[in-house]
């Protein structure tokens, strides 16, 4: 077992962990988006409520296990990312006087710690609004009503949109980078992976953004 810990904590191993957990989190985003888009059906939240009840059921053992795994991996991804950032910062030593990194790399790739940190803050707020009160606490009313209430606040919706743009930044680099980290790079399929990463990031960002935008406009036009 000692060799395995040493392996996943080596400089290449830490990155392997980032790639595997990152890809898992990206898959979760897809599932989460699929469920959330049910909110846009104009049925008073019926489809969404049915879906969230199934997902939250204590008898849904597979989902319960994945849920615990998700929390653990999300936390590991964040902690490991911060560790890597600190270690990598130390490797530079003295900073350059004149530094022009935009000539050789994308902004997305250089700001993963920043986009990741803001996503983490977003996550805490997001869980406090929805997950904790409706899943663990005893919030009055349904989650659907909670969604309507939360997104009718322009400040709250605005923060969501900002976080989603940063999530897209994180994914534009993260998705394709994960494949490179796994050792998958080939002139035949790497251009496809890079393109796919961008499309995935935009779809996730636009898909999730449609929900606060939809409810914000609905509340402003007076409809409930």
């Amino acid at each position, binding site marked *: 077992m000692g060799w395995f810990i040493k392996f996943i904590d080596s400089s*290449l191993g*830490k990155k392997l962990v980032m790639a595997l957990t990152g890809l898992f989190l990206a898959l979760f985003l897809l599932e989460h988006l699929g469920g959330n888009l049910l909110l846009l059906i104009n049925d008073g939240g019926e489809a969404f409520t049915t879906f969230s009840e199934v997902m939250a059921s204590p008898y849904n053992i597979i989902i319960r296990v994945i849920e615990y795994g998700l929390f653990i991996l999300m936390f590991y991804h964040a902690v490991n990312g911060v560790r890597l950032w600190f270690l990598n910062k130390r490797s*530079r030593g003295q900073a350059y006087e*004149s530094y022009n990194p935009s000539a050789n*790399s994308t902004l997305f790739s250089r700001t993963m710690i920043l986009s990741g940190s803001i996503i983490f803050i977003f996550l805490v707020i997001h869980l406090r609004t929805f997950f904790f009160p409706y899943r663990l606490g005893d919030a009055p009313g349904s989650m659907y009503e909670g969604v309507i209430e939360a997104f009718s606040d322009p400040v709250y919706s605005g923060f969501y949109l900002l976080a989603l743009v940063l999530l897209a930044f994180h994914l534009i680099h993260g998705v394709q980078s994960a494949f490179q980290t796994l050792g998958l*790079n080939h002139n035949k399929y790497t251009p496809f992976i890079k393109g796919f990463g961008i499309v995935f990031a935009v779809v996730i960002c636009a898909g999730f953004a449609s929900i606060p935008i939809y409810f914000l406009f609905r509340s402003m036009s007076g409809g409930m």
Partner: protein
Amino acid sequence: MAKNMNLKLKVWRQKNKEDKGRFQIYDATNVSPDMSFLEMIDVVNEELIKKGEDPIAIDHDCREGICGSCGVYINGRPHGPLREITTCQLYMRHFHDGQTIVIEPWRAAAFPVIKDLIVDRSAFDRIIAAGGFISVNTGGAPDANAIPITKDDQEWSLDAAECIGCGACVAACKNASAMLFVSAKASHLVRLPQGKIERERRALAMVAQMEKEGFGSCTNTEACSAECPKGISMDAIAQLRREYFKANFKVRK
């Protein structure tokens, strides 16, 4: 013919490893656009010597883009504003009259500054010594072409073997990671039959030495490959990762 230029150089001066170092401004006057960057430094140094001052110390050797000595950071980029060249291949026509040029040594904890613009790159030598070789018997030369190798494999190996060990990858990387160098040196061997025998030991030993030297880890910004004077591709890094992952699961201890 283009007119000669007057430039301001902001150069890092540092007496020795212990010295804290500082930037100093020099005037480079009447610089011909046809001079190479190193020739321009030569002229400035001539003036400094005439004035009895210490000339700017800068590494250089072949001056034809193949030795990898002349690595300096010029206006925020390794080897200056062009791609796939070394400093000796950089010409003054790529700068304009009145421009200030900032000249710094490579910045990496694993590359301590020896003097002015010269850094100690022996960390690279220790990585090679750890595993960047193949073991062969001495004696008579073996038959040529005794081991069949496809042209594709030869070329693929040579793509990685082009690395001149200049350290621009480390200098450009925001993490001062040496992954492009290490992977080029591991890949050019493992892409040929003779290099496959020691592949696991090599991958493990080179990565371990790389970590020991204090280089950062690769976060795939691809700055290294973009700034590499030989255009070494990111596929070398992917290959080293595969080699390293497999080796960890394969070796028996």
